[in-house]
C-alpha cells in the first residue's frame, strides 16, 4: 500500500473509448482483483480519486497497466493525459480473488469492463474458461489480449453480432457444474443472476463489486454494501465496505436484493 506520484508510460486507445494506461509503478505485490485509486487531476474538480482495477503487471516489473473506459469527467481527463505526465496512485487496495481449490473447474464470467480484474486472475491461474458478455461486437474488442493467455473463451453479445446471441449468464448456465468455482465481475444485474446460477449449481462463487468511492481505504464508509446477516449477528456488521472488505466477496454473503 503506497501513495505515490507516478509517471505515465503509455495511454493508448485500444478500442473506441477504451484506454490502456501504463504506469511506471512497481508495487511489491499485487493480487488479482486488487485496484488503485487514481488522482486524475491536480485541481479540485473532479475532487475525488477514481478507482480502477489493476489489469496487468508489465513484464520485467516495468510497471502496471490499467484498462479503462471513458464514461465521464474523470476518465475524460485521464484519456487526455500523455506519456511523461504524472498521476497520484494509491494502492494496491482491497483483497483479491481467492485461489480455486485443487481440481476445480474454473469459470470466469465477465460483463463489459468487468473483464479487468479477471485478466490477472487468468494470467496467474493459467487455466480456466472465460465467459464474456457485451452489447455487441465493438464491446468485445477489449478481450483481444486474452487470446494470448491459455484459456478457453466463449462470447455472448446481446445483439448477436459476435459469439452467441444472448447474455453471459446463458453461457454460465450451460457451463456451470457443482465442481466449478465461479469468478465474476460486471454490472450489478449480471452479478445477481450469476450468483443465483452458481448457488443453484452449488458452486462457490466470487464476485467483484463496484461502488462510488471516496477514500478507497475503508475510512469514509461510503462504499457500503449490505450483507446477508443472520438474526443473532450484531447489527453493526450489516454493511461491508467494497474498498477494504472487498471488492471481491463471496456471492453467498451478499444481500442481493439491496445490490
Amino acid at each position, binding site marked *: 500500500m503506497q501513495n505515490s506520484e507516478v509517471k505515465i508510460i503509455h495511454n493508448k486507445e485500444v478500442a473506441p473509448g477504451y484506454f490502456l494506461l501504463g504506469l511506471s509503478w512497481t508495487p511489491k505485490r499485487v493480487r488479482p482483483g486488487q485496484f488503485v485509486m487514481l488522482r486524475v487531476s491536480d485541481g479540485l474538480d473532479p475532487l475525488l480519486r477514481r478507482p480502477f482495477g489493476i489489469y496487468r503487471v508489465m513484464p520485467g516489473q516495468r510497471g502496471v497497466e490499467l484498462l479503462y473506459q471513458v464514461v465521464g469527467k474523470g476518465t475524460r481527463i485521464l484519456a487526455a493525459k500523455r506519456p511523461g505526465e504524472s498521476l497520484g496512485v494509491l494502492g494496491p487496495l482491497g483483497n483479491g480473488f481467492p485461489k480455486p481449490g485443487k481440481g476445480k473447474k474454473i469459470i470466469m464470467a465477465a460483463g463489459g469492463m468487468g473483464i479487468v480484474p479477471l485478466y490477472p486472475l487468468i494470467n496467474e491461474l493459467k487455466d480456466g474458461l472465460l465467459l464474456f458478455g457485451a452489447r455487441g461486437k465493438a464491446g468485445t474488442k477489449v478481450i483481444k489480449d486474452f487470446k494470448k493467455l491459455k484459456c478457453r473463451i466463449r462470447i455472448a453479445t446481446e445483439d448477436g453480432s459476435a459469439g452467441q446471441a444472448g447474455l453471459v449468464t446463458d453461457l454460465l448456465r450451460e457451463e456451470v457444474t457443482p465442481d466449478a468455482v465461479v469468478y465474476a465481475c460486471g454490472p450489478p444485474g449480471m452479478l445477481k443472476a450469476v450468483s443465483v446460477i452458481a448457488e443453484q449449481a452449488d458452486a462457490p462463487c466470487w464476485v467483484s463489486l463496484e461502488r462510488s468511492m471516496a477514500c*478507497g481505504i475503508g475510512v469514509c464508509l461510503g462504499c457500503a454494501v449490505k450483507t446477508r446477516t443472520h438474526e443473532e449477528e450484531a447489527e453493526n456488521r450489516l454493511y461491508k465496505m467494497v474498498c477494504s472488505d472487498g471488492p471481491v466477496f463471496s456471492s453467498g454473503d451478499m444481500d442481493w436484493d439491496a445490490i
Partner: protein
Amino acid sequence: MTVDIAGIRLKNPVMTASGTFGYGLEFSPYTALDKLGAIIVKGLSLRPRPGNPGPRIVETPCGMLNAIGLQNAGVGTFIKEKLPLLRKIKTPVIANIFGENIADYAEAASMLDSVDGVAGLEVNISCPNVKHGGIVFGTDPNEAHRVVSAVRAATGLPVITKLSPNVTDIRVMVRAVEEAGTDAVSLINTIPGMVIDVEKRRPAIANRIGGLSGPAIRPIAVRMVWEAASVANTPLIGIGGITTARDALEFIMAGAAAVQVGTANFLDPDAAVKVAEGIRDYATKHKTSAAELTGAARR
C-alpha cells in the same frame, strides 16, 4: 508551533476531522501519525449503529455529499479494540461522540472519561434529538445548551463542541455552548445538501439529504469562524474544505486557534501532515507563529 486547545497540548494546530480519518491507524501506511496535532476518531455512539443503506456518497462540484448514517461499533468496542492500539501513537486522540438523546451523550462521555488514552471529547451536536420530535441539537440554542451541559457534567475531560452550520446566526450557538461549559468550539460540520440523479429521477444517495463537505464549503466555513470569533471566549477550531496550508491559514487568520482537515484526507492520505508542515513554513518565513496568526485578519 505548539498550541493549547481546551487544555490539550498539540504539537501543531492541525487535527484530522471526525469521520474522515477512521481510527487513525488506517492511515499509518501513508502518513506519519506522530506529526499530527491531534487525531479525532470517527463518531462514536453508546450503542453500535449499522449506518444507512447505499449509495451513501456522491461527488459534487469541488465537494462531496455523504450520508453514512453515523455507522460505528459503539463506544465500548472502541475502548476495547481500538484504544489499546491508539495509545502507542504519540499524538493526542480526541473522541467524537454523538447520541440520539441527552442521556446517551452523557453516558458515552462518562465511559470515555474513565479510560486511558483519550485526550478530550468532541461533541457532535448535528444530530436529531429523537426524544424531542427530531429537532437537531445543533440548530437550537436550548437543545445545544442541554446536551453540552450534560456532557460537561459527565466528564472531567476537555470538551470541544462541534457546531452545525445550519443556523441563521452561528454566534447564538457559540454563546449557548460556551455558557454550557464547553472548553472549545469546532466548526463547521457538513452542510445539508442534495444531488438528484436526473436519469433515475431520484436523490442520488439513499438517505436523500447528505452532508456537503470539501473545498466548495470553505468560504462559508471561514465566514462562520469569523463571525464566531466576534463573540467567542474559548478557542475556535476551524473546519471545512481545507486541502492546503493556505486554506488552513484562512481559518487561523479569521480567528481559529487550530484547524481540522477532513475530506482532503481522501484526496491525499498525507494531506493533514502537509498542511501542518505548510503552516510551519509560512510561520518561519514570516517570523511568526500559529498563535500569533490567530485572528490576524481581524486586526
